[in-house]
């Protein structure tokens, strides 16, 4: 490791402190700038006619009335865009065998899910575009839809893409050790369960949106984008619209939540860009809530048949499962729809010492909306299967669920280690987090209380999870497979003439506070106050090249690039300062915007009250920028520094957490009240405790959504039946428990900063703890549930009541 070792101890370090978000006032005062806030001269508005059926052949579309409607500037069908958009294919090389046909922004001859774009109307207002869209007559010859993923591979199932001969998109089996022999052992107890996970989606406060402007004089396309990966979108727009990459600028200003929804290629957004280019006028498209439910990627949708073998002393002898997941009619471009299944294979049981393991995943096409990466990709499935089976097995052999974990979790001193599938694990703390969890929640007392309450007919339960989270991905995640998705990120820091610094980074802000932590790191490492830092992210024209923020990588990767850039700029500034002050760089430091003598406070390391100030950063910068004549001719000051960072040697930096839920089940109604939730989490170095706790809590709430509330309900013929905020239930404040967050800090040794990701742990871990808690409560009633969301009706069915 290189770099300074004292940055965390500097008197003016902001790392590790709950610094308030500099953008909070702006956002709370309604001064945020989201895509729909953009008003450009001559801007037009797009509305889409979408497929009313799940599967069918387009026989005829009469757009003549719409075209003639006053205020309508253009009407495009899928066929009209064939000449303007190169089709895209959602496969990657490292997911061997994954297949998906070329996709166009709007259906050309066959519609394959309800909500698929069919016709785009561009008009002087959105209302006019919708008026005209209503006049378009579409004749579709319906084809039999494939909606039930469990029947999608039946020999008599209709095949969505005839050229493949079946609806299988991808299949992978992983195996370690000899699971068959382990399951056959006489001294093991085998527990089998079927787990079902409903489809849900990430309901963002700001819906997907795009404003696209094309300037023919420079052949330049600008795409204002509510999203997470500007450089990826730059590549995609350039490639599929046939523009030089440098002639595409993608800008993400404020983004109102994303959760993985906004890192994909959506036909309506690509069509909006194509229309702007054809028309030479700016075009705005903002998805309304119905369009969001129909087309924002969905997630989960798995059925897993799993089994575990444990010995009488609680050791896991083997774990095996079969997973089937439905992804809609295409694999999503460019990240594919196979990553989630792959993560399930990789992550199930990854917290535990596991020698004998077999897992098979099958990814199938169906006539529903596309499924792809959403917060905590694959994690809830993996954790529910492993920890669900483990807790049920513990009860079978009469062992406490904490004790069985202690006997199987990888030891804290056993790292580096590898998972059964060969992924490298390092710097994890399963035992430490579990110990802290047990203490924080007062586990034993709560168990005793529950036993007592059961006698009074009150059914409470506790469930735990010991989890891993994939963060800080390396090029092994996407780049290796040919995706235009950077795993490295860069930060440029510039000293301003006034002595402030400007940070420009390729990671992005979607509301979680990325810009705040970048400012904290830069300010602390360089040596200025927080209010002397400005941050720019999200603009491909002005930021370094990078991947953006997803897979819990903003802090760990963008943060490290920022740390390195701040350190580099500091050294550069001190060289200039040393020349001006006739001192040596080693003898100087930067504290609160001032160049000071090291040791002048008597403490070494600089920064005490008595530090002798030699000059201000502003003086230095103004000397360099305005009065270069005062500097020696051979001095070439650089008051700007850029550093990039990527994770090497490991595919991901894993984090871990131990979580627990306490619930009370009302057996008469099937209602579950979540009484408490605890998360003891190890994301390495915590940069801003309030923001990390916010990530964990928000993640837990989203996990509660998946566990109890959220589900995209399709009819058998492929209609989404609950595409409104009244019918699709997101978790809301009234039902949320207190969520107690504690941290164990085991910094990753892959970076100086030592930060791992924290964005997805809550979502990845909480469903398993919640399901285990519900089953703990139901156990005395002889019932159990392994289907999410755990709705009142499903619990009543599990109880045999209805």
């Amino acid at each position: 490791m290189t770099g300074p070792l004292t940055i965390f101890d500097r008197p003016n370090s902001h790392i590790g402190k709950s610094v308030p978000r500099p953008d909070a006032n702006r956002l709370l005062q309604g001064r945020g700038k989201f895509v729909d806030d953009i008003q450009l001269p001559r801007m037009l508005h797009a509305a889409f006619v979408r497929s009313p059926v799940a599967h069918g052949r387009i026989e005829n579309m009469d757009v003549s009335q719409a075209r003639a409607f006053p205020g309508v500037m253009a009407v495009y069908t899928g066929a009209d865009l064939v000449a303007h958009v190169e089709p895209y294919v959602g496969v990657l090389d490292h997911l061997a065998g994954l297949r998906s046909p070329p996709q166009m922004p709007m259906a050309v001859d066959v519609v394959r899910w309800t909500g698929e774009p069919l016709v785009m109307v561009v008009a002087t207002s959105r209302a006019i575009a919708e008026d005209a869209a209503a006049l378009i007559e579409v004749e579709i010859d319906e084809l039999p839809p494939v909606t039930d993923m469990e029947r999608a591979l039946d020999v008599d199932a209709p095949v969505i893409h005839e050229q493949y001969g079946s609806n299988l998109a991808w299949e992978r089996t992983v195996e370690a050790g000899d699971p068959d022999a382990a399951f056959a052992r006489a001294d093991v107890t085998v527990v089998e369960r079927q787990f079902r996970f409903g489809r849900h989606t990430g309901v963002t406060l700001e819906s997907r949106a795009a404003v696209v402007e094309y300037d023919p004089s420079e052949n330049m396309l600008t795409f204002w984008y509510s999203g997470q990966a500007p450089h990826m979108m730059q590549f995609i727009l350039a490639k599929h619209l046939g523009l030089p990459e440098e002639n595409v600028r993608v800008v993400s200003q404020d983004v109102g939540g994303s959760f993985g929804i906004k890192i994909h290629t959506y036909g309506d957004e690509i069509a909006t860009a194509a229309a702007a280019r054809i028309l030479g006028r700016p075009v705005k498209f903002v998805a309304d809530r119905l369009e969001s439910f129909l087309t924002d990627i969905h997630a989960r949708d798995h059925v897993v048949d799993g089994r575990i073998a444990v010995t009488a002393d609680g050791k896991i002898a083997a774990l095996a499962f079969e997973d089937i997941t439905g992804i809609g009619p295409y694999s999503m471009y460019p990240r594919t729809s196979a990553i989630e299944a792959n993560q399930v294979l990789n992550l199930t049981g990854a917290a535990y010492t596991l020698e004998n393991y077999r897992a098979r995943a099958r990814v199938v096409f169906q006539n529903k909306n596309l499924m792809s990466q959403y917060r905590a990709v694959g994690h809830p499935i993996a954790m529910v299967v492993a920890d669900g089976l483990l807790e049920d097995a513990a009860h079978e052999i009469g062992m406490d669920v904490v004790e069985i974990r202690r006997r199987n979790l990888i030891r804290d001193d056993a790292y580096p280690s590898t998972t059964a599938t060969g992924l490298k694990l390092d710097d994890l703390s399963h035992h430490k987090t579990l110990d802290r969890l047990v203490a924080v929640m007062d586990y034993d007392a709560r168990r005793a209380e529950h036993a007592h309450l059961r006698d009074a007919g009150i059914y409470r339960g506790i469930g735990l999870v010991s989890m891993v989270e994939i963060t800080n991905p390396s090029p092994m995640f996407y780049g290796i497979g040919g995706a235009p998705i950077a795993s490295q990120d860069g930060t440029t820091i510039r000293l301003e003439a006034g002595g402030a610094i400007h940070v420009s980074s390729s990671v992005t802000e979607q509301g979680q506070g990325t810009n705040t932590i970048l400012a904290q790191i830069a300010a602390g490492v360089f040596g200025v106050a927080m209010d002397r830092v400005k941050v720019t992210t999200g603009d491909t024209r002005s930021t370094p090249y990078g991947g953006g923020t997803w897979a819990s990588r903003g802090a760990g990767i963008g943060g490290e690039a920022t740390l390195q850039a701040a350190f580099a700029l500091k050294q550069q500034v001190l060289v200039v300062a040393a020349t001006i002050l006739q001192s040596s760089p080693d003898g100087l430091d930067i504290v609160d915007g001032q160049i000071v003598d090291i040791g002048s406070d008597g403490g070494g390391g600089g920064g005490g009250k008595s530090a002798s100030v030699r000059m201000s950063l502003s003086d230095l910068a103004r000397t360099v920028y305005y009065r270069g004549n005062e500097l020696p001719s051979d001095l070439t000051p650089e008051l700007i520094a850029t550093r990039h960072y990527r994770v090497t040697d490991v595919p991901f930096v894993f984090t871990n957490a131990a979580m627990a839920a306490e619930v009370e089940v009302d057996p008469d109604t099937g209602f579950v009240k979540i009484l408490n939730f605890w998360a003891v989490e190890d994301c390495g170095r915590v940069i801003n405790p309030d923001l990390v706790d916010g990530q964990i809590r928000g993640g837990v709430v989203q996990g509660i959504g998946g566990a109890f509330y959220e589900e995209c309900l399709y009819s058998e013929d492929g209609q989404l039946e609950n595409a409104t905020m009244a019918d699709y239930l997101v978790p809301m404040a009234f039902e949320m428990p207190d969520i107690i967050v504690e941290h164990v800090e085991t910094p990753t040794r892959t970076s100086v900063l030592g930060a791992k990701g924290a964005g997805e742990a809550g979502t990845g871990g909480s469903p398993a703890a919640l399901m285990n808690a519900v089953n703990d409560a139901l156990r005395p009633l002889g019932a159990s549930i392994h289907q999410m969301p755990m709705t009142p009706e499903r619990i009543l069915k599990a109880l045999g009541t209805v």
Partner: protein
Amino acid sequence: MKAAEFRYERPESLAEALALLEDTDLDATPLAGGQSLVPMMNFRLAMPGMLVDLSELDDLKGISEDGGGVRIGAMTRYVDLAGSDLIARRAPLIAMALPYIAHAAIRNRGTIGGSVALADPAAEMPALLLALDATITVQSSAGSKTHGAADFFLGMYETALEDGELVTAITIPAPAPHRRFAFYELARRHGDYAMAGVAVSATGAVGAGCTDFRVAYFSVADRPVRATAAEAALDGKAPMDGAEAAVAALGEIPFAGDLNAGIATKLHLSGVVLKRALERL
């Protein structure tokens, strides 16, 4: 989505409003609190050619004594019902239910008349009016008439309202001495439409047998429904004494399932909410 184009009128007298509402060519539609109509317009599920905004009609607002009972103007907002002493004393069942009717922001705008005219089978208010034996006054340019709640709610979003008619008031009769009330609902999230809910009223001293039960369900069928067989099973008994028999008699209800609960679950939960309401009676 954006609402389809419509004409907007804000009449300043009831007569003017009623005249505007006669325009069936434009499908003239009254706008009360807008908490259901406006979202439906924004989804283009409702596309009235003319909106007649009732917000200036002060005659339709307010709560007043009415022969020992209470008269509620159709444009009275839920937030005003919640703050009314008269409602608390004369129609305590409404006061009990108000915290469960949607969310504060919706109660700030939503009106009793709007809820009654919409006749959403999952809404609380129509069932409350059944349990309270309320009457609904409707008016058109031709004059006014009244309907008993039982004759007003005819099906899903279907009422006895005819073209050109407007709900102007709800009248709740004076409660008999020892009239008691209870309310219970099961909603997946606070403020959601319930999976099942019930409003109960009966006459009798605490601990004694009760008579004249009115058991009115919401969110279990295509309209608010009284469970008359259950009422008969309860008659003359202390509430909990008749509870089991009443629950057993719920099969008479023409249950309708929804996304959250099939018919079997509706039946089961109807029994649960009835028992819990009777415990509270």
